């Protein structure tokens, strides 16, 4: 049974060229060759990423300046920022912002606490360790749409057991905004807590054991050890986990789509973008929603990186 290995000290990236290279001219030749090889090897990845994300995003930016419906291609005309004005003055947009924000904040906050508990149990457990790790990966791997159906049917009146078990009679969970959001968030939490708990576990194993021992010897209570030793030492891992989960939750689409289809003000931003672009084929206003959604993500990432100083160098792998 392996635990997660600690990272190699100061990660030894191999020297660019093997030592024992006698002539300087030769070495720079090698360096040039290495640069060319590096560029060639990463070119496909560069190309794919630009073609499939940057280019369509630019295209969305252009489309967003036009009045353009697929159902009326001839009526396409340049309208400047009118689409943005339309979207930003529409209560539907703001309701989607609020819904997305509520789900994001609630699920990330709960997942952080729950995920930390899970990580702690996975860290400390001796007997049944691999069972727990296996079990936790099932929600991680399961299809989100399936999770959404499972939870929806558990709460739905004609099929669910929840009302029977809780003695709620004929209470309709999907009949009002807040109870719907509760069930949506529950499914989201069930499905994604494993991911956050594994990221936290990776941070947890990096907390030096000697520090904990020393604190214990000095008479620190378990609570003090948690807040004064463990948490500060895994701050980077916590921030990275929260950033990734926040942006992931911000994209939420599957759960509201399956559970409520957006009824009772449960439409999220991704859902709104989907509905405008795909269902209504209103590509002008839809693209404005797309661009605005992208901007909200940029703002969130910016806040995390600049304001909370989340250190992403570890994630990016360039240290």
């Amino acid at each position, binding site marked *: 049974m392996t635990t997660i290995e600690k990272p190699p000290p100061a990660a030894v990236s191999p020297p660019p060229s093997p030592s024992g290279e006698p002539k300087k001219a030769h070495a720079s030749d090698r360096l040039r060759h290495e640069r060319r090889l590096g560029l060639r090897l*990463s070119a496909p990845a560069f190309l794919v990423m630009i073609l499939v994300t940057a280019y369509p995003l630019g295209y969305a930016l252009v489309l967003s300046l036009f009045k353009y419906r697929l159902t009326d291609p001839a009526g396409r005309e340049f309208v400047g920022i009118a689409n943005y004005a339309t979207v930003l003055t529409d209560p539907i947009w703001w309701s989607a912002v609020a819904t997305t924000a509520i789900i994001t904040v609630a699920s990330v906050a709960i997942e952080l606490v729950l995920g930390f508990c899970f990580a702690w149990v996975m860290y400390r457990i001796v007997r*049944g360790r691999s069972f727990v790790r296996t079990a936790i990966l099932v929600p991680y791997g399961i299809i989100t749409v399936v999770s959404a159906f499972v939870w929806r049917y558990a709460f739905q009146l004609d099929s669910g057991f929840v009302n029977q078990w809780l003695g709620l009679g004929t209470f309709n969970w999907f009949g009002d905004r807040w109870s719907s959001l509760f069930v949506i968030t529950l499914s989201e939490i069930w499905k994604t807590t494993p991911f956050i708990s594994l990221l936290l576990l990776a941070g947890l194993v990096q907390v030096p054991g000697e520090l904990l021992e020393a604190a214990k010897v000095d008479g620190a209570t378990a609570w003090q050890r948690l807040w004064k030793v463990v948490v500060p030492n895994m701050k980077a891992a916590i921030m990275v986990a929260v950033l990734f989960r926040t942006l992931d939750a911000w994209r939420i689409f599957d759960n509201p789509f399956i559970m409520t289809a957006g009824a009772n003000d449960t439409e999220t931003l991704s859902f709104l973008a989907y509905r405008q672009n795909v269902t209504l084929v209103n590509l002008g206003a839809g693209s404005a929603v797309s661009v605005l959604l992208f901007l909200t993500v940029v703002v969130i990432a910016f806040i995390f990186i600049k304001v909370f100083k989340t250190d992403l160098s570890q994630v990016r792998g360039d240290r």
Partner: protein
Amino acid sequence: MGVDGRKTSNWWTVWGLLILVWAGFPLVWMASLAFKSPETFRDGVPTFLPTEWTWQNFRTVFSDELFTSALRNSAGIAVIATVLSVIVAMFAAYAIARLAFPGKKLLLSMALAIAMFPQAALVGPLFNMWRGLGIYDTWIGLIIPYLTFALPLSIWTMSAFFRQIPWEMEQAAQVDGATAWQAFRKVIVPLAAPGVFTTAILTFFFCWNEFLLAASLTSTDRARTVPAALSFFTGASQFQSPVTAVMAASVVVTIPVVVLVLLFQRRIVAGLTSGAVKG
């Protein structure tokens, strides 16, 4: 460890059991619904477990072309996208782990940006572009975005694995008389294979799970994957509740996930934790 230690260790096992229940309970519920008769829901007081167990729902979904074609599409698209993504990412990850070249930082930053990218912002333009290119509602139309959005995770995970490979061994083998190809094949490939394989599993999960693009870029059973097909499934007939059939289909598509998790638990955990935080 004394009696005290053993007692604490038992407590951790109890907490572990609770996690087991937490993860497994919804699966039991899913299976329970899948074995219920579709007529169960008429009487109004649903129970947790079926009163009568039946295979009927599985027969229903497997005789439904909508589901079987979706299963084919899902498997084909996920496997092809995984293979392509892993190949493209392998080159990039090797370059990142082993070579000094300009643009390395840019590549890593781009991967980061794409990991954070809201896919929903692309459904409009991709929908329009794919129709223009004639790849709307085709396998390739889904494979292209899938392999792209799987790239960041693949690149991180594999470059983390590649950094841990003792590359000097390749030269050592050559000193011992192996050819460059032999050294690569006999020494490096076996060392790199686990990392590549783990990355492939994580990528497969991503493609198998994807719903937004599948719902946006397909319209018929030509390319519609299981998540999209499930979301549009209305039941064998309009008089029958679709609940049990949807759950039977869900059980079927959850089986590969459970099998992969059972077989490769250790690798998946190592892959997820190394790619994300170790760098």
